[in-house]
């Protein structure tokens, strides 16, 4: 499957980002685009403050009514790997690629794919010899890649919360242009 670059002309002023969603079998479920203006400005601010508070790499819980949700975040040169969990259960794996440093992003995305292929559940579900192969072929930037895990112990309500947190965290990351310290 080949993915065209629908939104390549956006390097200077980024009004949004593309999102590619994958099943746990490694098959792409769709690629679409979120405009920043369609996201909640309140949640973009909260997620931006969360990223600013914790820095380029962290493993931390949210606070208040979201205290049961954990986020593990590692970023470098405009790319990031993120996992969202609920009470210790993995809920979603995310990779973010801003388009700022293609070589670094390529390396991060390969790491993302390799880590996913190493998951036992993926190995059991995938019938393609190369699950998540499309990850490395998608040209859109900025790009959010997401794999929700559908753990039965994570409630639908929490899945919906994770979805909002993940999308707005991606939006905040791309808007702020967070980079790892030199």
């Amino acid at each position, binding site marked *: 499957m080949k993915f065209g670059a629908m939104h390549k002309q956006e390097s200077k002023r980024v009004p949004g980002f593309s999102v590619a*969603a994958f099943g746990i079998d*490694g098959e792409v479920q769709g*690629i679409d*685009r979120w405009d920043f203006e369609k996201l909640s400005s309140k949640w973009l601010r909260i997620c931006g403050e969360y990223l600013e508070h914790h820095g380029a790499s962290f493993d931390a819980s949210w606070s208040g009514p979201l205290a049961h949700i954990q986020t593990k975040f590692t970023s470098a040169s405009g790319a990031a790997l993120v996992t969202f969990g609920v009470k210790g259960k993995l809920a979603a794996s995310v990779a973010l690629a801003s388009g700022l440093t293609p070589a670094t992003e390529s390396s991060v995305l390969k790491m993302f794919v390799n880590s996913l292929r190493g998951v036992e*559940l993926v190995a059991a*579900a995938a019938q393609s010899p190369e699950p998540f192969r499309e990850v490395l072929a998608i040209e859109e930037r900025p790009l*959010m890649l997401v794999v929700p895990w559908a753990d039965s112990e994570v409630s639908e309500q929490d899945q919906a919360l994770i*979805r909002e947190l993940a*999308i707005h965290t991606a939006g905040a990351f791309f808007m702020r242009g967070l980079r790892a310290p030199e």
Partner: protein
Amino acid sequence: MLRPVQIEFPAAGLSPTQQQLFSSHLAEQQTTLNRLSLTAPSDLELNLLNYPNVKAQVAAARRLARGYLPGQGAGLDAAHALDSVAGGYIHEFVGFRDPIQQRIGALWRTRADQIVPGREHWLIPIFDGE
């Protein structure tokens, strides 16, 4: 030559448009089933044997994944060329289809045991008054 295996898919209460969609998707599945059955019967047999519980989680994860998209696929379901329960490859999607195709998936659950790898199959839609 053996006669094709005929498997009926009754679907009551569908509008003419839904009947057309149902028949169209069923024909798509028949083509894929026969391709597998006649050219790769061992694959079909293996897929039928390997249809495990993890598939429910795969389906749930796919639904969740599509929820991250701002509208794409809304109201449509990712459709298999042949449902997994009927021996189709998990990864072989034909794109998004009307939710009516879920009726076929549900019917397959009580009909997959009629599949005979190596034989040709006819999947026959049965509507009201037929």
